[in-house]
């Protein structure tokens, strides 16, 4: 059974990596095969804390996606990006630096993909006005989003999964990783300055084009913006206090999402429309497949093997995680 389980997992992984099959379809297929072959039964897949779907992760993602989906409708990002481009007086590197910082800070609470999707259109607009190539700016933002996402428990789905499995709190992530991310960002901005040095041609004659942009027009619903920001601040406060109050982050996220729907004019249908359902289904299927590997003992054998090869040295033991 072990060989079959590994075979199903590796085949599914290759299908996902090759992108020949939709990743959700591949993961669901793999999970279905594991269940059908009895590698893992439905009791373990759906109800076991050790080897089943981690519902804390799924509901934390669901709650944050609803909150993020509402905030992205406010136009806050567009406002901040255009405002900062104006303050930078159209100077390319200053614009890149502010966009990179906005992206990284936003990624600490928003999903990376969402953050980039929010900042990318306004980046292209600003670059078009200044006759600059948008690609270096977009690359810089993608990297910044990945760096920023490391800082908090909710910044990136892997953080949520690691926190769930290792029993790490929101503050554990914040205290240990946020300072590191701040340092990384300083170095990263220097790297951007050097990497894209040929792209920063400043043309003062184009400044008027940036100054003519009307950032206030991006705010579509002022009341929604204020309400969403208040709820977001409360949710982040609750995340910080979650371990002291003994509340799971998933409960905080769901409460925040519920409150946001209640206090804004957004309907529940509109709120759940912004949820990335394929991502949630993908994670559920992955949990089932990993649960299958746990059931047949592959994960235990693997961890024993890694520990024996590295002789229990922490740094070397974490290397496979870096490689992933």
């Amino acid at each position, binding site marked *: 059974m072990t060989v079959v389980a590994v075979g199903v997992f590796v085949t599914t992984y290759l299908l996902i990596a090759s992108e020949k099959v939709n990743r959700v379809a591949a993961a669901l297929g793999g999970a279905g095969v594991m269940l059908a072959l009895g590698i893992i039964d439905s009791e373990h897949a759906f109800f076991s804390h050790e080897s089943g779907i981690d519902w804390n992760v799924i509901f934390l993602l669901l709650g944050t996606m609803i909150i993020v989906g509402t905030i992205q409708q406010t*136009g806050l990002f*567009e406002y901040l990006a*255009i405002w900062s481009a104006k303050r930078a007086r159209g100077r390319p590197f200053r614009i890149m630096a502010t966009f990179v910082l906005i992206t990284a800070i936003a990624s600490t609470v928003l999903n990376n993909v969402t953050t980039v*999707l*929010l900042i*990318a*259109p*306004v980046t*292209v*607009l600003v670059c*078009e006005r200044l006759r600059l190539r948008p690609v270096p700016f977009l690359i810089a933002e993608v990297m910044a989003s990945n760096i920023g996402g490391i800082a908090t428990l909710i910044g990136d789905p892997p953080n949520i999964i690691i926190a769930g499995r290792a029993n790490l709190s929101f503050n554990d992530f914040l205290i240990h990783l946020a300072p590191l991310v701040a340092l990384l960002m300083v170095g990263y901005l220097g790297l951007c300055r050097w990497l894209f040095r040929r792209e920063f041609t400043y043309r003062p004659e184009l400044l008027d*084009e940036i100054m*003519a*942009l*009307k*950032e206030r*027009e*991006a705010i*579509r619903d002022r009341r929604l913006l204020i309400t969403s920001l208040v709820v977001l601040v409360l949710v982040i406060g609750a995340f910080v206090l979650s371990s002291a109050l003994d509340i799971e982050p998933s409960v905080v996220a769901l409460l925040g999402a519920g409150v946001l729907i209640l206090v804004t004019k957004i309907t529940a249908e509109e709120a759940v429309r912004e949820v990335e359902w394929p991502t949630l289904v993908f994670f559920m299927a992955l949990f089932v497949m990993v649960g299958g590997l746990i059931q047949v003992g592959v994960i235990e054998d693997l961890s024993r093997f890694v520990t024996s090869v590295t002789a229990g040295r922490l740094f070397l033991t974490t290397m496979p995680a870096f490689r992933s």
Partner: protein
Amino acid sequence: MRAEQLAEEFPTIGLDDSAVAAARFLANRCLPALIVVDHQLHPYAVLPASQVLRFMIPPYVQQDPALAGVVNEKAADQLGASLSGHTVRELLSGSLDELPVVEHDATAMEIAEVMGRMHASLVAVIRGDILLGAVSATRLLEEILPQ
């Protein structure tokens, strides 16, 4: 009433004709859409005026509609320039899921169903591969409303 009785002769445009020509055609004759034909003059698509406008909008505004209001009036007035150098085929890219086409014997109900489902203001009427004409939403309304 069948589609062939409702169909009116309607201007057509070729797939590789210029996008500017198509837009001028629509504007000068106040048409809601154009029928696009392939090299054998078979109906290929219906090009609504709204699709031409959509093509003019920069991709970043399509992705983030909030940016439409951010651009000043002078820049917004230059939208039309984005059509030059493009063809009708390019105007249609990404909008060809299904054609608003009915067979010659389709009833008013069938035509209305196609228009309603596809949000089309114009439906091409065919017999086999041959284009007979088109039925506009206003023509259909005129026909089906009680006198």
